[in-house]
C-alpha cells in the first residue's frame, strides 16, 4: 500500500453510529484517538489516552494474567487465519528457551489497507502490543517486519521507536526490518526465513514457527492489528473487550471496504456484524451489487444476496466456504463482469507465487490462462471441465497456502458467477469486460530469483 492510498483511506470518515455496541468514542477502539483528535497519535497523545504500559500484567508462563485475559477475551488473529491468539501465546511461552516475537505488518494483500492505516494513526498501540506479548512469552528479541516499498511508513515507525527509546517505554528494543514486498512474503514462515538470513519465501512446515522459528527458537508471529487489540485487553480486560461484538466473535475489527461503496476506506466495526452492516459503515453500496469479495485476493466471492445478511464471523463464513481473511470486503456492482475481475486477480496470483512448488509453477498459471480464456476470449465446455479439474488440484499441494487461496478464489467465482460462465461459454465475452475493472490489481512481473532477499 502506498502512502497515497493510505492517505486516501484515512480521509475524514463518517461517524460510526453510537449504538452502544462498543464503548470508545464513536464506538471505536483502535481508531478512537483519530476520531477524537483527527490526527495520528504521537507518544504523548498515546500516553495521555491510555496511560503507561501495564507490563506487570504480562508475566510469562501458565499463570500469565495477560495470556488468561486474552483467552477470556476470545481474541483471534487479524492477519487472515483467525487463530485464537491466546493459544499461540501459550504455545510459545511453553516452548524451550528464550522466545522471539515478530510483528507482521507486511500487508501484502492488495485490497487491504488496514494495517498501514493502524500503523499511521496509532503506532504506539501496536508497539505496546509487541512489548506486552514479548513479556508474556518470555522473549528476548522483538522484530517488526514491514514492506520495503513503504518508505513513508518505515520513516514514521523509526521516529516512533526512537521516541519510545528516548522516554524508556520499552523494556526490549524492537528491531524494524524492511522486507521485499511480494504477495507471499507476508506468510509467517517467509518472515522467519528472511529473519534467519534467507529469502522472504515460505518454507515447508512443520516445524511451525511457534516450535522452531527465528534462530530456531519458539517464535510468536502476530499481525499488528492483533497486537494492538492485545494492548487494549492488557489495560481494560476481557469483559471490556467483549462489550463489543458477539459472544462467538467478540471485540471490534478493522475492515477495508472497497468497490461499489460510497466511501471506500478503512473502518473499525464490531465483530460479527452482518456484512451489509459493515458496508453501511462506508455509506453502503453506491449502486446495485451482484457479489461481494470477502477476504480479498486470498478470499471468496459470495453472491450479494447471500453475503449481505451473513454475520462476519469465522463460523458463519466457513459455512459458505469463505473466511474473514484480513477484513477485506469489496462490493462488486452488477455492471461489472465477475469473471473478468477474477481472471485479473488469478493472473496476479500466478505471477506472485514463490515459484517453489509444482502447483504454483505450473498449475496456477494454467488456471489463470484458462480463466482468462473464459473471461476475455473463448473457452469450450471441454476447456471449462479442464479448468474445474485444475482448480480442484491446486489445494493442499504447496508448502504454503498460496495455491489453496487461489483455488478457493477461482472455485467461488465459478459458483457465484455461474450464469455468467454459461453466457461466456456460449456467446463469448460480455460487453462489461471492456469496462474499467473494480479491483485494483497491481501489475508487475514474476519476481526474479535475486529479488526475494
Amino acid at each position, binding site marked *: 500500500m502506498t502512502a497515497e492510498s493510505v492517505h486516501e483511506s484515512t480521509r475524514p470518515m463518517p461517524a460510526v453510529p453510537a449504538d452502544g455496541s462498543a464503548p470508545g468514542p464513536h464506538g471505536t477502539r483502535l481508531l478512537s484517538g483519530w476520531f477524537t483528535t483527527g490526527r495520528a497519535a504521537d507518544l504523548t497523545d498515546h500516553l495521555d489516552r491510555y496511560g503507561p504500559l501495564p507490563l506487570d500484567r504480562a508475566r510469562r508462563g501458565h499463570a500469565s494474567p495477560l495470556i488468561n485475559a486474552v483467552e477470556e477475551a476470545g481474541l483471534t488473529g487479524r492477519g487472515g487465519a483467525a487463530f485464537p491468539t491466546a493459544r499461540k501465546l501459550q504455545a510459545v511461552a511453553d516452548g524451550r528457551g528464550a522466545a522471539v516475537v515478530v510483528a507482521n505488518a507486511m500487508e501484502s494483500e492488495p485490497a487491504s489497507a488496514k494495517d498501514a492505516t493502524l500503523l499511521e494513526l496509532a503506532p504506539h498501540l501496536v508497539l505496546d502490543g509487541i512489548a506486552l506479548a514479548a513479556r508474556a512469552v518470555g522473549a528476548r528479541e522483538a522484530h517488526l517486519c514491514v514492506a520495503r516499498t513503504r518508505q513513508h511508513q518505515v520513516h514514521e515507525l523509526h521516529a516512533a521507536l526512537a521516541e519510545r527509546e528516548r522516554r524508556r517505554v520499552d523494556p526490549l528494543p524492537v528491531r524494524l526490518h524492511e522486507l521485499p514486498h511480494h504477495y507471499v512474503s507476508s506468510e509467517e514462515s517467509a518472515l522467519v526465513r528472511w529473519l534467519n538470513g534467507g529469502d522472504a519465501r515460505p518454507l*515447508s512446515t512443520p516445524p511451525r514457527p511457534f516450535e522452531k522459528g527465528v534462530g530456531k527458537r519458539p517464535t510468536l508471529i502476530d499481525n499488528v492489528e492483533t497486537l494492538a487489540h492485545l494492548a487494549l485487553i492488557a489495560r481494560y480486560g476481557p469483559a471490556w473487550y467483549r462489550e463489543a461484538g458477539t459472544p462467538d466473535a467478540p471485540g471490534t475489527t478493522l475492515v477495508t471496504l472497497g468497490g461499489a461503496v460510497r466511501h471506500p476506506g478503512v473502518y473499525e466495526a464490531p465483530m460479527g456484524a452482518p456484512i451489509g452492516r459493515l458496508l453501511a459503515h462506508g455509506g453502503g453500496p453506491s449502486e446495485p451489487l451482484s457479489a461481494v469479495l470477502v477476504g480479498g485476493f486470498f478470499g471468496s466471492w459470495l453472491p450479494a444476496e447471500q453475503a449481505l445478511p451473513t454475520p462476519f464471523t469465522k463460523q458463519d463464513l466457513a459455512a459458505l466456504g469463505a473466511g474473514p481473511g484480513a477484513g477485506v470486503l469489496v462490493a462488486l456492482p452488477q455492471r461489472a463482469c465477475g469473471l473478468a475481475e477474477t481472471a485479473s486477480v488469478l493472473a496476479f496470483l500466478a505471477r506472485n507465487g514463490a515459484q517453489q512448488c*509444482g502447483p504454483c509453477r505450473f*498449475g496456477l498459471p494454467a488456471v489463470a490462462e484458462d480463466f482468462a480464456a473464459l473471461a476475455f476470449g473463448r473457452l469450450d465446455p471441454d476447456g471449462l471441465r479442464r479448468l474445474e479439474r485444475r482448480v480442484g488440484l491446486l489445494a493442499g*499441494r504447496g508448502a504454503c497456502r498460496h495455491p489453496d487461496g487461489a483455488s478457493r478464489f477461482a472455485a467461488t467465482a465459478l459458483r457465484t458467477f455461474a450464469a455468467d460462465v454459461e453466457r461466456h461459454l456460449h456467446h463469448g465475452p460480455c460487453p462489461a469486460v471492456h469496462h474499467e475493472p473494480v479491483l485494483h490489481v497491481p501489475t508487475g512481473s514474476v519476481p526474479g530469483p535475486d529479488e526475494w532477499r
Partner: protein
Amino acid sequence: MALTRSNEQSLRLDRIACEGHGACAELLPELLSLDEWGFPIVHSATVPPELAAHARRAVAACPVLALRLERARP
C-alpha cells in the same frame, strides 16, 4: 491397538524440494499419482503395512529426497 498404531507410517512430501521426477508414483501408484505436469498428488498419506516395502522403495527412488516416511502421528 496402540502398538499397531505406532507401527503405522505416513508419507511426507517436501513440496519445495520436489522437482516432479515422478518415480514415487511409478513405484507407489496405490497412494500417489501425478498431475499433468508430473507433480505428485497424494491420495492417502497413511501407508498400510502391506504397502510398507513399496513405500520404502518409492522414498529411496526420489532423486532429490523430497519424499520421506514418518511414524504416523496419533
